[in-house]
């Protein structure tokens, strides 16, 4: 079980790190094996930051990320290597994920050196080919090429293949579909579905609502670093409670509708409901904080469906 417990990240920006930039604020969710959780949010909402914190590439400012009860911040050396055997990621930008000095299969070579140094050449090659096959890549066309000689989609799939070399249990997939054309996209989506069947937990980071809806069991909607709503995908999409998610879902491009029509509808009362903040109706501001002095950021609206305050900061009264 991969657990995020009130995880926050504050970047230090400006000269001498004088200014704080909160990128993620008190995000909590869990991901089990065989479960696809989609993390949806607009650009700059902190999705990549959450993913990189899970992969321990950046530190958490406050809060705790743990795997099966172990805080990952305490891992080091062999413990970290063992963690990376279980949890892997694919990054958003395939072009920047490859070192331009080396051929593209350098990313596989590094894997071999770290985890399969005892493997014979033939066995290793078989393993690589099986991995490449799984993502629909032709080894002859992709190995021994420089990154700039491959397309973004090929590079992206090579990164997925790299992660599959290990027997991972969780995969952080940061916008891995956006680079692909429609047919490859279906292939990769189906691959993810297949991997889920085998027990892989996937954090599917995307800004594309329909993709999130298509693939995930649970949905987390992020806005400016806050979770505004989360829960079972069917519930979040079927009955969005937070005005922001409602707006997002209404505004998702639909094949049979023009944006102008949607905008008119939103303006005519399809947008934020007048009745105020559901979170504060469920959790009145004057109610005392919990046992450990922390105030919750989400309130439970129904089984497996949670909603945050209408105001993003979540402090004080909002209605």
């Amino acid at each position: 079980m991969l657990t995020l417990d009130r995880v926050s990240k504050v970047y230090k920006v400006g000269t001498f790190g004088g200014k704080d930039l909160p990128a993620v604020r008190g995000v909590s969710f869990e991901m089990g094996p065989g479960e696809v959780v989609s993390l949806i949010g607009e650009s700059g909402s902190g999705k990549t930051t959450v993913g990189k914190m899970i992969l321990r590439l950046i530190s958490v400012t406050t809060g705790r990320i743990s795997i099966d009860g172990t805080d990952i911040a305490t891992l080091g050396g062999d413990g970290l290597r063992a963690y990376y055997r279980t949890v892997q990621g694919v990054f958003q930008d395939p072009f920047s994920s490859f070192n331009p000095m080396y051929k593209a299969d350098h990313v596989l070579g590094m894997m071999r050196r770290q985890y399969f140094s005892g493997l014979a050449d033939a066995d290793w090659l078989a393993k690589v080919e099986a991995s490449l096959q799984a993502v629909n890549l032709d080894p002859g066309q992709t190995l021994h090429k420089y990154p700039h000689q491959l397309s973004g989609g090929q590079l992206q799939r090579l990164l997925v293949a790299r992660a599959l070399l290990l027997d991972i249990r969780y995969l952080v997939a940061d916008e891995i579909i956006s680079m692909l054309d429609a047919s490859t996209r279906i292939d990769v989506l189906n691959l993810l579905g297949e991997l889920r069947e085998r027990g892989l937990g996937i954090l599917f980071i995307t800004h594309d609502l329909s993709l999130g809806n298509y693939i995930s069991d649970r949905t987390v909607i992020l806005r400016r670093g806050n979770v505004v709503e989360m829960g079972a995908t069917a519930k979040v999409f079927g009955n969005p409670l937070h005005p922001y998610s409602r707006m997002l879902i209404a505004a998702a491009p639909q094949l049979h509708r023009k944006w102008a029509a949607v905008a008119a509808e939103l303006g005519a009362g399809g947008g934020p409901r007048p009745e105020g903040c559901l979170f504060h109706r469920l959790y009145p501001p004057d109610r005392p904080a919990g046992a450990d002095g922390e105030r919750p950021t989400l309130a439970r609206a129904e089984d497996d469906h949670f909603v945050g305050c209408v105001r993003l900061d979540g402090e004080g009264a909002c209605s």
Partner: protein
Amino acid sequence: MNDPERISSAVPVGAAAPDRAPIQPAAPAPAPRPGEPAAASGRAEAVGRRREILYFALRDRKVLVGLGILIVFVAAAVVGPLIRPGDPDAFVGPMAAAPSREWWFGTTTFGQDVFAQFVYGVGSTFLVGLFGGGLAALIGMTVGFVAGYRGGVVDEILNMLTNVVLVIPTLALLLIAAAYLTARGVLVEAVFIGLTSWPWAARAIRAQTFSLNTREFVDLARLTGVPSWRVIFGEIAPNMGSYLFMTFILLFGGAILIAATLDFIGLGPTSGSSLGMMMYNAVAWSALQLGMWWWFIPPGLGITAIVGALYVMNVGLDEIFNPRLRKM
């Protein structure tokens, strides 16, 4: 629904297979193709790139000219002492003789052979450049890489150290050192230069490392569990190979110039000879006023030619490493 529930990390997980299933794709592994080696390390790639750079380097006129001049001087430093063996400072010839067939570069006021001093001095000049520049490059790269890669507190401490060394008045330090170290060789001078001339290199390398560090391939290496030192030398450093090489060349030339200056103002080695000390002696014994041009022209020209050749090479290498500047 009126009873609000406190949630921190409390989303129940949906139906899930709790046990760990193998995720390895089950696609049948095809037989390895003949003639297609395993996706292996970057050694072969690095060799290919090196060969490409060598190819362009050997076609670049600036590099060839610079290299040619350097080779001539190195040859002089190696062969010269064989032609004129013995102590270069020995009083072997007539006093203040102009260049002749016997004394190629003439002799000093005291009858020392200027040619012997010159070839010996060229040797120690290269020694100072190599050791002084090499030491400065080593310190500068280590500090720059570590500061840029680690960031945070480590970076701040190393930055402070860099700034301190940057503002230390080198000359004052050397005056103090000269008072205590009564016997100084060329190597001591080289070490001193190396210990004080690295800060600008450290700063430049730190800045480059900083910017490369945000690239995702560095994250990917870390995600593979690659140790820090290998991320630095295997992923970051190759991306600034040309830059590192040029840094070394500039430090090399800089060390030679600093040494010549120190020698010229009398803070040079107490033993051995160098081009800077030849000039110091020539001026001290009024070679300029006496019209003994053969005493100060060779060392002056030698220093200028060696440092100039290094800088010309540097400009040429810029064109080679940066494909956009290449003349195709």
